[in-house]
């Protein structure tokens, strides 16, 4: 398989890696950059554990081709805690017991972050919609919904630009 050079931004840092032609973004992240935060739960686009942001939009990295991300801005959970400070979403997930086994958590966090980028004051319905592509088999969802709503509140109280 041909090795293809790619340039992209990962959590604000410039990166250059070689990938196997036809590889997915998930493989690029996990095998090449050492960022293991995006999980592989199904490789079918159905579970959402591999959710990352590509140019600000939520994407399922398991079905996104790495070569389509040449030049893209990619964000993962590894970039969520800025300067060692947990993101309000991370705090809220801890406080609301919204992570049990934790396997869905990175995907949930990125899906929620994507929501906040377009809708900083989401309703409960908005949150449910934003998380609808992410499966959690442990929590029953309610704690996650509560965590996202409470993070939104914290963030809008601390002013715009907090995301």
């Amino acid at each position, binding site marked *: *398989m041909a090795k293809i050079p790619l340039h992209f931004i990962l959590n604000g840092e410039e990166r250059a890696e070689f990938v*196997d032609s036809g590889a997915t973004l998930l493989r690029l992240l*996990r*095998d090449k950059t*050492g960022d*293991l*935060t*995006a*999980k*592989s*739960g*199904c*490789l*079918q686009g*159905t*579970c959402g*554990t591999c959710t990352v942001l590509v140019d600000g939009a939520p994407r399922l990295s398991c079905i996104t081709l790495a070569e389509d991300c040449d030049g893209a801005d990619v964000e*993962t*959970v*590894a970039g*969520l*805690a800025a300067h060692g400070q*947990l993101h309000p*979403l*991370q*705090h809220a*997930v*801890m406080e609301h*017991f919204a*992570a*049990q*086994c*934790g*396997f*869905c*958590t*990175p995907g949930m*966090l990125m899906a929620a972050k994507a929501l906040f980028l377009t809708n900083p004051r989401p309703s409960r319905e908005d949150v449910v919609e934003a998380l609808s592509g992410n*499966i*959690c*088999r*442990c929590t029953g969802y309610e704690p996650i919904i509560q965590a996202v709503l409470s993070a939104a509140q914290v963030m809008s109280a601390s002013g715009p630009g907090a995301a």
Partner: protein
Amino acid sequence: MEIRKKYFADERNDDLKEIGQSRQRSDALGHVKGITPFYADRAIPGLLHIRMVRSPHHHARILGIDASRAERHPGVRRVITARDVPHNVYTVLSLINIGPEDEPVLAFDKVRWQGEPIVCIVADSERAAYEAAQLVQIAYEELPAVFDVEEALKPGAPLVNEYHGQNYYRYDSGESRKVILGDVEKGFAEADFILEQRYQASPIEQAPTETTGCVVVPDQNNRFTCYTGTQAVFFTLDNSSVILQVPGQQLHFVGGTAGGGFGGKVDCTTEPIAILASMLTGRPVSYIYNRYEEMQISSPRAAERIYLKDGVMKDGRIVARQVRCYVDSGAYSRHTPYGTQKAAAHFPGPYTIPNVRIDCYCVYTNRTPSSAMRGFGVTIGDFALEVQMDKLARLIGMDPLEFRFVNAYRDGDMKAHHQPTEGAALIECMQEAAEWADWPVDPRCMAMSSREPRRQP
């Protein structure tokens, strides 16, 4: 969270320090940072990948296996068949002296369920392994298959598993696990009403978000580290050491972090093969179920069919209960003889019934082997029992909760298993639940206590 202290107040010391307190999970920080190390979360250079060639048939004789094209396929490092497995017997329950050795790790003479593993491909990439898997040619002679527990027990049904010689697990008590108290026939004769019903449930997949799997890294000195999502680390280590015929100290298992399990990750299906592949290639190897395998190949909670026959009096007392429960083990035993035994132990539910007869059968069919899942052998039975309780209440025109108060077991009552009841608290739970749910029940029920014997009618 709140602890209701009005019940059994004289029995409690109220010196609980942790119970009733909210405490952060110890792994929460790792979870939200995405750095909790699940088994696949290790960057391992030179990792090889396994894909399994599986039976497309429910029941067939294997006439021949030709893997030569797969062996020559670019990127393939090794093809493993039954011949390469030192002790080709899948041993889960034999470790605790229950299980029959009725299942091969890799099938060789026969396949007994659709999806049974036959040939293991070890390759440089998932892609190469998938490609090679399609090049393996296996000749089969298809055999008649049986998918229904009661069909399987009929004379003339296809024999699923020769090890057993019949399509059920033979307990020391015979063809079923039995529990007998009193005389059910006498009880039915006395009863005002009799209700017989059939209940059944399909197999239930645990469906964890992280699929079953492991990654094996060879260490120096012929030692192998196995990173695994198993819920049963030491059990799996012991099984692997028996299957591979190597002393346990050659195997180092790292586990305890499962991306969801729900009982579905106790079958040690991936570890022995992945370690063997690592031994044969000298390379790190990963064997990770894809989502299809997780849903179709990993053992589900067993399907069950349950017949309940109850004799009940107009005043609400159940005087006889007969249970026939057929648990679908699939083609092999795995944990199901044990699950069936649990079912027998769990019937007739938390009720005091003087005449009980329980027969629980562990039945072999040509379906995916079933195994553990939270409360296996119990949850489906509970569903059947409690639906039956509602139907009985309706039959005699009694409130369903009051009906349960009448029959709830109390301290000193003889259970069907010939053990006197101790520490009963069902009545108190129902009293609390009735208050919370605002479900009015007769004051007579609210005055009951688990510690007072039932008044004889």
